[in-house]
């Protein structure tokens, strides 16, 4: 059995190990022990903060295997992107061009540096190790962030986005960067990402990045080809997120051209179809009763816990029958409230 829970100080060593094996992408965990420790501390402070308006909070979740207490995945959510600055992205603009005189009508694609995603809540740092990739716990980890958001809406914006790492070559080169950002930054993609620390809210972005639209047809073919394409490491996240209701196509990353998925919370399955139920203890099992897998979460603070559990359908019921061991993992008791969504 696996549980998703907020990160704790004791996890730092495990995260460091995980960071060493996880992809060298930019939207994953920090790499150094110091930065990891900072992220963990920020998360703990965030979970325990009293929040009226989403601000600089960042919430980091881990997926723990209860069998050996190993950490097999991480996922994060930032309350307000670019909260101490502006979150920059490229908006995909389609410019309609019509000339009635010439009987011409076509559309031209342009990328415009924009700050529209500023103050959205940002999902980030999703990673699960290979053993869990094909299990429902991968989906649990991804959705746990939104279950938490559904339980504590005042901590988050009404809109969410997720940048996914874009397509890069074997040596970390990015055809999109080479065609767009490099001309302004005068450095390699990896150097630029290192310099900026993966951030998208820095003053130097507005100083250096193009102020006017980049007309896509003018870009070299290889750069056009990778626009909105995901790095293979992001495929699992992408499929989980689009199933959740996130939409691609509106924004791409200013550095590597990777897709930025976004959605209003009303379009997200976890937000619209989650059900609040009272915990009950199951009666002795009636064999043959069909069960359905749910992601179930409890507690909206540092005690937040989420698990996958298969129980009889709860749509027609005011309660959910959770085995005692699951109640323990979730840190709830009979009569307590949980939030559930089919997984």
């Amino acid at each position: 059995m696996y549980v998703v829970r907020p990160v704790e100080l004791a996890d730092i060593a495990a995260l460091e190990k995980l960071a060493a094996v996880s992809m060298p992408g930019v939207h994953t965990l920090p790499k150094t022990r110091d930065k990891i420790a900072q992220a963990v501390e920020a998360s703990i402070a965030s979970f325990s903060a009293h929040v009226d308006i989403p601000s600089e909070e960042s919430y980091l979740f881990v997926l723990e295997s209860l069998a050996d207490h190993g950490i097999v995945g991480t996922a994060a959510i930032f309350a307000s992107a670019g909260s101490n600055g502006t979150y920059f992205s490229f908006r995909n603009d389609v410019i309609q061009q019509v000339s009635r005189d010439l009987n011409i009508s076509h559309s031209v694609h342009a990328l415009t540096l924009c700050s529209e995603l500023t103050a959205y809540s940002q999902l980030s740092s999703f990673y699960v190790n290979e053993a869990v990739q094909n299990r429902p716990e991968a989906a649990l980890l991804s959705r746990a962030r939104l279950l938490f958001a559904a339980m504590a809406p005042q901590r988050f914006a009404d809109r969410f986005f997720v940048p996914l790492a874009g397509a890069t070559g074997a040596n970390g080169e990015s055809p999109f960067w080479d065609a767009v950002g490099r001309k302004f930054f005068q450095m390699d993609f990896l150097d630029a990402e290192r310099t900026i620390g993966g951030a998208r809210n820095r003053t130097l972005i507005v100083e250096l990045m193009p102020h006017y639209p980049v007309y896509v047809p003018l870009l070299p073919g290889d750069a056009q080809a990778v626009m909105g394409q995901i790095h293979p490491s992001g495929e699992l996240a992408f499929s989980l997120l689009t199933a959740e209701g996130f939409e691609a196509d509106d924004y791409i990353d200013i550095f590597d051209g990777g897709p930025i998925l976004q959605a209003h919370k009303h379009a997200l399955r976890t937000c619209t179809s989650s059900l609040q139920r009272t915990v009950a203890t199951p009666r002795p099992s009636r064999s043959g009763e069909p069960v359905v897998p749910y992601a179930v979460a409890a507690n909206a603070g540092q005690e937040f816990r989420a698990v996958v559990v298969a129980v009889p359908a709860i749509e027609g019921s005011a309660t959910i029958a959770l085995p005692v061991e699951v109640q323990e993992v979730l840190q709830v008791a009979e009569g307590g409230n949980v939030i559930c969504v089919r997984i």
Partner: protein
Amino acid sequence: MLVVRAIQATDLDALYDMASQVGSGMTTLKPDMKMLGDRVEIAVASFAETIPPEKRDYMFVMEDTDSGRLAGVCAIKGSVGLDEPFYNYRIGTLVHSSRELKVFTRMETLYLSNDLTGSTELCSLFLNPDYRHGNNGKFLSKCRFLFIAQFPHLFTEKLIAEMRGYQESSGRSPFYEGLGRHFFKMEFDHVDALTAQGKKSFIAELMPRQPLYVAYLPQDAQDVVGKVHTSTVPARRLLEQEGMHFEGYVDIFDAGPVLQGRVSELRAVRDSALAVVDVDTDMTHACAPQMEPVLVSNTNLKDFRMVLSEAAAVNGKIDLSADDQKLLRVHAGDVVRTLTLNVRKNTHV
């Protein structure tokens, strides 16, 4: 002998013949009897001052008086862009710099503009290949500056000349292929023909309105921004000698440069001088400095005429040959304007 003179209605057929030889690349001189007829009519009205200055179009022909043939043509339009918008790209500079990263990037940018609206334009220069020798090309091109020096009040302070842009020997325009084609989706020649017909609203409809970074164009397109067609290099040099400069405006289709000048700073305006036609005496000859070709024009707008002479003005007098006087339709005692054909080196330094 060659004389440059104001065009007349009777020149229309000969002008049409000449326009037929021009070939592509000059949008203002196409073999179209209706267009040329309208233009000659406007030109005649311009010299006669029967239409307002901004509508005028002074057209000059170079005539071979031995054969009566037209050897060349050129023109000055009073103002461009007052009927149909006149578009150019202006090349600007944007600096993108970050102190934190110690990056300082200077980017060239193209702005779609109508900045040159209202300027006086030098245009439609064509010299028959049979006459492309000696000083004829210079004479034909520079005659316009002496005309402006004589009648500066007829023109705006700003003067422009559009130069044909670079094309490969195949006729391919790297700038058009790198930029315009993506927005117009048609052949360069087709776009060119549309603009020659004055159909320009499609530019507003189809051209990208936002400034463009030159660095986003393909390298071969970047390389030809502001570069003239190989055959236009000498024409550009002549204009530059007279005080015209490339100031960063280029054609929106082929990126050919626009040369710009201020009337008050033209060599012709600064250095041309009036002189009285004098009888041919030994005295004036004796005092004249070393011979060099001199543009000499009469001062009559309606019957404007100019020759390339070897006479020189000394102390406000000029000893013009009888032939020159005849070509200019001037007599002893009349005033003419003179300008050395070639630029003198600065003798002060």
